């Protein structure tokens, strides 16, 4: 140890075994965790796609038709298939975590996790039906 210790906020120079960037592939539960975190990319992607749809509709009928045609290209179709899988994964993990993130008590007794998660799944079903109703009626 020749040089004096230098302290920086995130890289203190004491001995620390270096963790591989691929640490999350070493165990199934770590991989699931990172995949869940990566649903953020699919969520952001679809938010941008929705913004694109709104802009196309606002720009007029031709722009809307062009947008629909672009959605049918192999690139966007495959991106959407992957994004759909990730978005579903996000929904399921989100609803299953809801009872742990927000503990509901009624008259001092904790509402069972299954009921809190079940209400989330119920709301999902109802809202999906509403979205389909508004987009499919004409």
């Amino acid at each position, binding site marked *: 140890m020749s040089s004096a210790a230098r302290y920086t906020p995130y890289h203190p120079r004491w001995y620390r075994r270096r963790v591989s960037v691929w640490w999350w592939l070493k165990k199934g539960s770590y991989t699931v965790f990172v995949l869940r975190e990566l649903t953020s990319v699919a969520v952001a992607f679809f938010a941008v796609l*929705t913004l694109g749809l*709104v802009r196309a*509709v*606002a720009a*007029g009928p031709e722009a809307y038709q062009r947008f*629909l045609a672009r959605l049918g290209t192999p690139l966007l179709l495959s991106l959407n298939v992957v*994004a759909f899988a990730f978005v579903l994964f996000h929904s399921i993990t*989100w609803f299953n975590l809801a009872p742990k993130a927000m503990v509901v008590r009624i008259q001092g007794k904790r509402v069972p996790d299954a009921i809190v998660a079940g209400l989330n799944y119920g709301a999902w079903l109802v809202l999906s039906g509403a979205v389909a109703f508004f987009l499919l009626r*004409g």
Partner: protein
Amino acid sequence: MLERLTPVLWLLFSAGGTVAALLFPAHLFLTGLAFPLGWLEPPSHEALLTLLRHPVTRLYLLALISLPLFHGAHRFRYTLYDGLQLKHLTVLIAVLCYGTALAGTALAAHTLWSIPG
């Protein structure tokens, strides 16, 4: 600055996560798969424009676009920290992530409010 904003960012994360969890699968299934693959008939331009003219639809779409963008930005920020071990780039990553969400929100608001009523 970032520390002071943390509660707001977490609030946006959880609001956006809930909006995305409840509404994105249906929207993505219809817009991204069922319409382009011809399983279901896409709505006509006229029908969508009529929907867009309603103020409630505009508010709905602003929430549907903006909140999940902030949710994604927040989660992706921590994915970069943990997954790629980039904790030393905190400020740059935060500015890029939330900046993108903010820009998307501004563009969505501008688009939605410039549609003739």
